[in-house]
């Protein structure tokens, strides 16, 4: 049997989305075709404004057992979230 097309991960920024979100995967011979396939497969219901594709083998995933050390520190860094700061209204838009 011949070789299978590589697997790509697809990220789409929607109509009102601020950032690209992982929506799924697909197969394609190269990056250009992967973008086109993503358009055909994952934006059939008007879901997308912008598409990213990454070949799946280039995605490095965190190890699930690292869940503690990887994510808990950011839980205590609430200052990264804008609502942490109480700013007087007359400071204007920020």
């Amino acid at each position, binding site marked *: *049997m*011949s*070789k*299978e*097309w590589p*697997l790509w991960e697809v990220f789409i920024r929607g109509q009102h989305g601020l950032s690209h979100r992982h*929506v*799924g*995967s*697909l*197969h394609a*011979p*190269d990056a250009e*075709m992967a973008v086109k396939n993503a358009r055909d*497969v994952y934006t*059939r*219901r008007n879901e997308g404004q912008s598409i990213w594709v990454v070949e799946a083998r280039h995605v490095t*995933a965190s*190890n*699930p057992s690292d869940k503690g050390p990887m994510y808990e520190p950011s839980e205590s860094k609430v200052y990264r979230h804008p609502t942490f700061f109480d700013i007087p209204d007359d400071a204007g838009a920020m």
Partner: protein
Amino acid sequence: MYAQMVKSTGEGVKARADMSPEEAAFQDKIDADIKIEPKDWMPEGYRKTLIRQIGQHAHSEIVGQLPEGNWITRAPTLERKAILLAKVQDEAGHGLYLYCAAETLGVSRDELTKDLLSGRMKYSSIFNYPTLTWADMGAVGWLVDGAAIMNQVPLQRTSYGPYSRAMIRICKEESFHQRQGFHIMMKMVEGSEAQKKMAQDALNRFWYPSLMMFGPSDKDSVHSAQSLAWKIKMDSNDELRQKFVDQTAPQAKLLGLTIPDENLAWNEEKGGYDFSEPDWGEFFDVVKGNGPCNTDRLAARNKAWDDGAWVRDGLLAHAEKRAARKTAAE
């Protein structure tokens, strides 16, 4: 269902006391509704059962394109043609999402495809029945997609993350499938005598095969307990079948059609309908490969796959040449 009679490990559910610490921690996560993700530790039986189930589900979507694809070129209006094409296209998408979910478990789409084409892996028995008239497009959407949705909605909560996410996407898309089918039926029963007859005939032929979609009765379903404990099966076959009949019987009445079952009657006491079991002998025949369309369906899939080989190879060869030229230029 789309994955009927999926064999699990066959060892039965392990008692807590017999579980290794890993197995116990794994079961705890499932009991707490924490999703299992591809890199998480999982029992080999869980992985294998999931591959079989998701694979079978994916195959069903793909083979399921054929009976409805059979009518795309004969759809009676431009709008019906577009709706049916979009619907069958969705099924291809469902197959694609599901193959991708299976791929996270370490099996490739090509391997699964090979197992489908050789007949080693199964797909839902329902797609081995022929679509003979336009009313069958109505019956399939109404009954077959209706039954599928009944099974897929709870599967959105299944324990395996990628499977669950695929089901969420699929359920979103499914919502119009059943409705377009019911709408076809409505037009038929409002139409000429011939159309009404066609609609009743479609219901007659698809009723029992639809009931079979949920798989054999719980008492004959040896593999269910472990799958239920792992939350890769969310309800028992009989529960879903009952729900399906309870939902569908009033719809048939609304259409003015008769469900081909003399024993169908509302049972006040159990709060559901009594109904006749399908012919399980026929079911096992179909599963074994002796349904009216098994041979044709597999032949069609094999032909499409074989005929497409040069295309898959050609486009990949071009991509590789281009990549090589690019590297050489750098």
